[in-house]
């Protein structure tokens, strides 16, 4: 039905780059974002940077969330940011969840990661941050 005034849902890609094989955290976040009314494309485990960026492009997402546990974040995340830039995809904001040492977190922020959530972050925080980063904080 015509509902021109209703704002379209935020589209989020949740992906898990790297080789470690469990994605409970990413699934919990995906569900929380869904419960906040977002459309979450869940790309699953063991995604290469190329596959993640292609999914972000094809799915025309407003924001990308990466879950990382493997310690390979400093290899993978900069690569993803670089590919997003190359795609000419415009500035799709990227947030990261995982165990990331402070020093690395600083460098990732400098490279363009918009938010980093450690294991202690609440789902509420993540949802609010996704809304803010996509300019939907009404």
């Amino acid at each position, binding site marked *: *039905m*015509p509902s*021109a005034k209703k704002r*379209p*849902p935020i*589209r989020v890609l949740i992906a898990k780059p790297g080789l470690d094989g469990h994605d409970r955290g990413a699934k919990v976040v*995906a*569900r929380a*974002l*869904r*419960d*906040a*009314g*977002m*459309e*979450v*494309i*869940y*790309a*699953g*485990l063991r995604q*290469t940077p*190329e*596959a993640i*960026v*292609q*999914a972000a*492009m*094809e*799915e*025309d997402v407003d924001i990308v969330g990466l879950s990382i546990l493997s310690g390979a974040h400093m290899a993978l995340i900069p690569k993803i940011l670089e590919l997003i830039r190359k*795609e*000419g*995809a415009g500035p799709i904001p990227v947030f990261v969840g995982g165990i990331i040492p402070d020093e690395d977190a600083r460098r990732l922020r400098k490279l363009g990661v918009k938010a980093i959530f450690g294991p202690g972050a609440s789902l509420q925080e993540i949802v609010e941050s996704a809304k803010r980063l996509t300019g939907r904080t009404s």
Partner: protein
Amino acid sequence: MSSERRLPPAAHALINGDRRVLARLITGAENDDPGARAVLRAIYPRTGRAWLVGLAGPLGVGKSSLLNALISHLRGLGQNVAVVAVDPSSPFSGGSVLGDRIRLDRSPDDPGVFIRSMASRGHAGGLARATREVARLLEAAGFGIILLETVGSGQVDVEIREVATTSVVVLVPHLGDEVQTLKAGLFEIADVFCVNKSDLPGADRARRDLMEFASLGGGDPGWTVPVVATSATTPSGIPELWQAVEAHERYLDSSGKRIEGERRRLTQEILALAESRFVADLSRDPTLPRRLEPVLARRLDPETAARRWWVERRKGRT
């Protein structure tokens, strides 16, 4: 080419295969955005020849895994292929987790494939409201084969018939009573039956049951619904599944059913679009509150009130 020049720039980019523009236009079509609507109007004359192959079937029967196997098979044949996978939206939050992509692991630098997930956004019937429009955008971007995956709610995923040119109904072994219960919905829309997970015990039995069901006829007398056994994860039976789809598409051409189907689908589409406008218009009719009163007071029944309204509006307008 003067008609080329009159195309909106986005339509031009779309036709030239710009993936980013395609992705944005799909979002626009989903959101019923005026820019996307203008492009859809402009490209419409170029559409209508693609094969729209729908995969419908209950939750977890392996629809996405079959898509994955079909993508590699079709790429092996040198065909471009686009995929639209629909998942349900939550009726409570309006949100959705779209998980079909997990099963699709094609090479990321292959330009012959495009995959898009869509949420149903409350649309009933197993597809999203904008599925047809999205298929047209994909066709205009050069995809002659478009695979559609329905929500997976089994019996009610019947809208695929109003969108796809070939509907594949996917089931698994040990249907048992399901054969009985599903008879009245999904079964009637099948152009091809696929028994997936045929690596599991019971596949032969399921295949025989379905063949028996298919041989009873009832649908199109010119087409006997083939039953193909597959295992999407092995994979096996995938070339046979595609051959069955091709045979159906060829049958549509040779029998004249393609035009017939197109006539039926477009009639439905126009009716549905007109209906939503009429309903929007009616709900703004200033006489509606006045018409409600006698119905609320139980002096007039709703059917009579609606009929009088309809008659009066017709007199007033035509």
